[in-house]
């Protein structure tokens, strides 16, 4: 699937055996986005010409030349991936520390918000610390992990208490929608001024 990183778009994928990997979202052959590709076994293939890549980023196969062993020089840039607590974390370069532990909460959904972190803070009436915003709505606690994408968009990962039942989780998802509407309304209000 497509995702964003501080160094540009990435293709995030999971192999058949369950290992996650993050590639630069561009096939070095003709520049096609690899997030449109397909996974067979432990390899990701580009949808355009079927060039396939191992998790380490090296090219395994060029279907137009089945007899050719692709040279080592054909490779996709990769990022370090940590699969922890139901969240996929990537680090650009060497990670300084492992991803933060998120005890007692579990991921519910990810949403794109057409607003910056400040607008989300204003809508939630709380300050984010280290990209984490705690929001209480109708007595329910939501923990929001915020990943800004440029000036005006924020990818918001919504986490809820591990013990939340389905009814509570649905309510939490709706509360997150309400928060997004409020933040986008604040952002639009600012844009008009």
């Amino acid at each position: 699937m497509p995702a964003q990183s501080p160094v540009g778009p990435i293709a995030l994928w999971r192999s058949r055996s369950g290992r996650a990997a993050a590639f630069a979202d561009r096939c070095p052959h003709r520049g096609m986005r690899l997030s449109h590709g397909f996974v067979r076994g432990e390899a990701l293939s580009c949808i355009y010409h079927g060039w396939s890549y191992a998790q380490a980023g090296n090219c395994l196969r060029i279907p137009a030349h089945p007899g050719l062993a692709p040279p080592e020089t054909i490779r996709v840039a990769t990022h370090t991936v940590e699969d922890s607590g139901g969240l996929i974390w990537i680090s650009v370069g060497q990670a300084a520390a492992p991803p933060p532990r998120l005890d007692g909460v579990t991921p519910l959904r990810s949403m794109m918000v057409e607003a910056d972190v400040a607008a989300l803070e204003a809508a939630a009436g709380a300050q984010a610390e280290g990209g984490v915003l705690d929001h209480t709505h109708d007595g329910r606690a939501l923990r929001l992990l915020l990943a800004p994408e440029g000036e005006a968009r924020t990818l918001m990962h919504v986490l809820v208490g591990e013990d939340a039942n389905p009814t509570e989780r649905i309510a939490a998802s709706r509360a997150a929608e309400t928060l997004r509407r409020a933040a986008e309304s604040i952002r639009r209000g600012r844009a008009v001024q």
Partner: protein
Amino acid sequence: MSRNAMIDEWYPVGLASQLDAQGRKTTLMGEPIEVRLGDDGNAMVTGGNGRALPVCVRYGHVWSSPGEPHRALFAIPEADQPGRRLVDVGVVRVRCSPLRAVENFLDIAHFPFVHTDILGAEPHTEVQNYKVEIREDEDEVWATQVKFYQPQAARSAEGGITTEYMYRVPAPTCSILYKTCPPRPGEWDVITLFVQPLAEDLCDVWPWMALFDDETPMTDLIHFQQTIFVQDRSILENQIPGLLPLDPGMEIPTRADLTSVAYRRWLKRHGYTYGAQLVAQ
């Protein structure tokens, strides 16, 4: 921007069959233009400031140029052969460089993945060696002896066959494909891609065909070609960078890509850079 050599080329700007007095507003290399049927019954093309642009009507389309073409529109002798059916496929807009659209048309290695079970299918993915040349007399790029396995080569083809193709690039945004003609061995079907550059990253594509096929209903022929092109469209809108890189380093060609390599070299040599990126970024 310096004057681009592509200014003086011919471009398709509408279907001749849909020409009317009311006119069609469109864009050619950033300039708003209007294409209509004049009082004298001839096609007229007017530029942004009201100036009359060069015009000719050929191969089902109205052609024009924002500059001063040094030569007549390229010839397709086969188009005048008796017995061919001429197919107006209609326009499809694509948010991509006009040069990327042509380059994709010259490519066969994507058939098994993008036109699966129609123009290609795994495991028949191998591209055998073929011949590529820049013909100096005509100043055109040609690829010949291109062979590829096709599960359904055309509307009139049943079952898989090895199809032979020839590709020809007579103008920076136009390509002609000659393809084995199942009902008439020894002749070639003609399938063209005429691209109207609206901007460097936006184009209107006008496929057109001249086929030996008396059986297939016209609508089926149109739908077959529209299917193929719209399958390509989602690829073309997702290539990075959007502009075609003419300098090596940005992309990795293989033997299967020799037509593309020659096309890029020919574009660069002529300064045909509208829709291209020169320095690898």
